[in-house]
């Protein structure tokens, strides 16, 4: 039983990474009907920016002699990094997607792949092949509940992720920008008729998705401190799987499927040798998709007639 609960905790942590990244895929898809295949690399870039921000803040604190507590630096790091990384998303939309909005789907699909390669190799060229170690801003403390061990980092990772998802939900449901995004997901060609420019909603969507990926990048760096330019590829693909499994364009579905993915992986690794983890986990997901080809919450789109 303890081991079961322990795995739930671990699954929640991994699920948080997948869910935060999957949201970005889903949001962009829901408004543009395109997947941003550079999104996994935005996670990587976010992690690196987080590294830079945290290092700078630590340096500033040391220089000024003010003993800032680690958790405070962490909060600042998350906020600044999300803000900075959102511009990476805006940039990707502007140079990669907007010019190709009326291009054939396949062309628009490969722009993400190309931007991803540029981000990976660009990072390699600028920072070199050495792996960076993410600064550990908070002490690792382990709490014991019965036979279940929970570190403060795990609590933080799951807590921040759920908090961000809640904020995203509020934003989409309550703000006028969120309303415009929902409208666009239903019928993006009718949005300009309301006097709303798609060129304002699309960058905003990329920005929010990228900011969430950046948060995932920092949280990931806390749990697994080694950064490398290709860290976003496998994680990004898995989050993409979660986005599809959740139902294309469904925000709630993407979040839930992200957690489901985390649970499946952790529980598979509990029973089977860890080398077989992904083989078995993704066979299971393949099977789920066979029975639910539209994912869990496939959103009903309007027929998207051409105006």
């Amino acid at each position: 039983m303890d081991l079961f609960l322990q795995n739930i905790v671990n699954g929640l942590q991994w699920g948080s990474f997948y869910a935060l990244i999957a949201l970005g895929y889903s949001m962009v898809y829901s408004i543009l009907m395109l997947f941003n295949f550079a999104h996994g690399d935005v996670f990587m870039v976010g992690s690196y920016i987080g590294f830079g921000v945290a290092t700078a803040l630590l340096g500033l604190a040391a220089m000024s002699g003010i003993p800032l507590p680690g958790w405070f630096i962490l909060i600042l790091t998350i906020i600044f990094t999300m803000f900075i990384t959102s511009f990476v998303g805006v940039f990707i939309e502007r140079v990669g997607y907007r010019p190709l909005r009326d291009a054939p789907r396949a062309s628009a699909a490969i722009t993400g792949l190309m931007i991803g390669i540029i981000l990976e190799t660009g990072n390699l060229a600028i920072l070199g092949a050495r792996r960076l170690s993410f600064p550990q801003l908070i002490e690792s403390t382990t709490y014991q509940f019965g036979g279940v061990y929970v570190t403060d980092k795990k609590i933080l990772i799951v807590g921040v992720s759920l908090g961000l998802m809640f904020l995203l939900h509020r934003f989409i449901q309550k703000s006028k920008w969120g309303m415009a995004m929902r409208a666009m997901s239903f019928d993006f060609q009718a949005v300009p008729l309301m006097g709303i420019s798609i060129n304002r909603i699309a960058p905003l969507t990329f920005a929010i998705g990228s900011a969430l990926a950046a948060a995932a990048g920092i949280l990931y760096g806390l749990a697994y401190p080694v950064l490398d330019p290709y860290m976003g590829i496998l994680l990004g693909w898995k989050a993409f799987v979660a986005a599809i499994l959740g139902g294309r364009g469904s925000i709630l579905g993407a979040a839930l499927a992200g957690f489901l993915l985390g649970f499946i992986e952790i529980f598979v690794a509990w029973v089977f040798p860890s080398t077989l983890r992904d083989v078995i986990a993704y066979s299971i997901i393949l099977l789920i998709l066979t029975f639910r080809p539209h994912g869990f919450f496939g959103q009903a789109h309007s027929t998207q007639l051409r105006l």
Partner: protein
Amino acid sequence: MQLEIKNLHVSYDKIRALHGIDFSIDRGEIVCIIGANGAGKSTTLRAISRLLQADKDSVMTFEGKDLMQYEPDKVVSRLGISHVPEGRRLFGNLTVMENLQLATFARSDRERIAGDFEQLFTIFPRLKERTSQMAGTLSGGEQQMLAVGRAYMSARKLMLLDEPSMGLAPLLMLSMFEALKEINREGTSILLVEQNARLALKFAQRAYVLENGRLVLEGPSDSLLNNPEVKKAYLGG
């Protein structure tokens, strides 16, 4: 003239849909374009809304401004031209109120929005009863009211209407046109395209007849109502 269209050419993938049409609307007028299915009526409205790119030699001016320089969303937010599109294109996943609020998204005269809502709900009391209902679950008549209501809330100088009678029962049609008249009395010019020629001609002051992408007839509505050719082709003899 508020809206002046000269030599409007529009093509879909090299196939001409409009062969250089000329027409105009004066401030406060109700003008209709009648024609058969595929004559180019919707194309005309979409070209004015800039949803379709008109050929370069076309001339479109609205209140002295070159319409061709405006993006579709700016036609609404800067020029004040609203468009009720074919098929209504409501956001079915949003409530009635959200659909209407969305229409005010880009308005700069935010202080007037509350008053406009009040006025809208006196024109369409039905919409007020339905504010929290999902737009996708409205009846056909209510959907049409919401489509017009959305246009009313988005821009007020000129309203383009694409087949507002489509799918409505005769009584609903009449009350819809009464509502449009009320909107017109408040100062909004109306350009309407209709297959229901009799209804449109009774409603509008002036009319144009569009055939295969060309305007073949124009004049005051009552003279077209009595025109033998129009009677034969569009009014069922």
